[in-house]
């Protein structure tokens, strides 16, 4: 099983355990945060580099990854029954993101992601279709 799928299964399982699983829009945005949000203490910063290697593009409902979308759609219910073990470094980051953002639904997360990217509602149209690496400077 590839790393991306492992993380997806882990995220969905954890959200379900917490009782805050709201669907694909939410999981997509959490995967984006896992990939691109760097948290150091109270500082949060979107980085150009992708932690898991997924590429995201801005569309109307925020960052979207074709790869993550495809893998999410291929997940079968029975795959969610088994526990997923992640490497410590990866698990730490995923847990941090879920603890911080796992309570929000996809709509709220979408707004948060755009805010973190510094894209206001009025400017959104200008960024639609751009990749994260084309938007983030660092």
């Amino acid at each position, binding site marked *: 099983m590839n790393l991306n799928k492992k993380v997806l299964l882990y995220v969905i399982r954890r959200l379900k355990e917490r009782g805050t699983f709201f669907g*694909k829009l939410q999981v*997509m945005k959490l995967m984006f945060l896992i990939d691109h949000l760097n948290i150091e203490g109270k500082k949060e910063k979107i980085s150009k580099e992708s932690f898991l290697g997924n590429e995201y593009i801005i*569309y109307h*409902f925020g960052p979207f990854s074709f790869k993550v979308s495809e893998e999410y759609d291929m997940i079968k219910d029975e795959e969610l029954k088994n526990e997923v073990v992640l490497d410590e470094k990866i698990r730490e980051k995923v847990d941090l993101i879920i603890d911080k953002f796992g309570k929000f639904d996809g709509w709220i997360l979408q707004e948060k992601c755009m805010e973190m990217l510094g894209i206001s509602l009025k400017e959104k*149209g200008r960024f*639609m*279709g751009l990749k994260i690496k084309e938007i983030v400077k660092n």
Partner: protein
Amino acid sequence: MRFLSFSRFKEEYKDIEDENIKQELFYLSLFDISFQDLEKSDIMRRIWKDVEKKVKERIPHFFKKGIFKKMSVEDFIQKNVYNDRLCKFIIAFELEKQGIKCGFSKSDDLVINKNRNIIIEIKRVVTGTQLNNYIKEIEKKYENSEKKIMVLLLFPQFGEENYERVSRLTEIYYIIERYLKNKFKNVKVLCQYITEIRIEEYSMSRLIERTVNIIKSLEEKV
């Protein structure tokens, strides 16, 4: 090349004369692939996969090969189709043909006439949840704005749905205009269902005709 420019688009599009071909291209421009994130049912997701396949297969046929020398078909679609760029350009081109001067604001919104006081907010709608979000966004975006706003709600045919029935349902959304009128002084809402294969009532030409009439009525308003 990052995005297709309006002038480059015009070069490509001006030679398409067949209304059926225009209809197909316009229909394919009405999907933002990220909308599929909202779908919970497997059937809807499957339809999205079909849409994705169709867009990838058909879009290259509408443009000259040169355009794909600097950019792969996939990149072109991701940058110009799934966002509302292509859809917006087609509408602007067709409006200009009807004598309505179009331009684009700094934030890439479609604006009409010299004073740039009429904005066309194009929203492509597949589900009700989307629509709800769009309306909230429009409210926020134009809060305290003096602009005249025309909201174009475009409902592309989705899967094997019965277009006669669904198109009637989409017209119900006129109620949105009544709602938005409480928020903005000059606002008009137009709902148009768009079929994949050209049917006059649900065609792009019908949409343009209706849009022109609304723009004229907005121009007259103080």
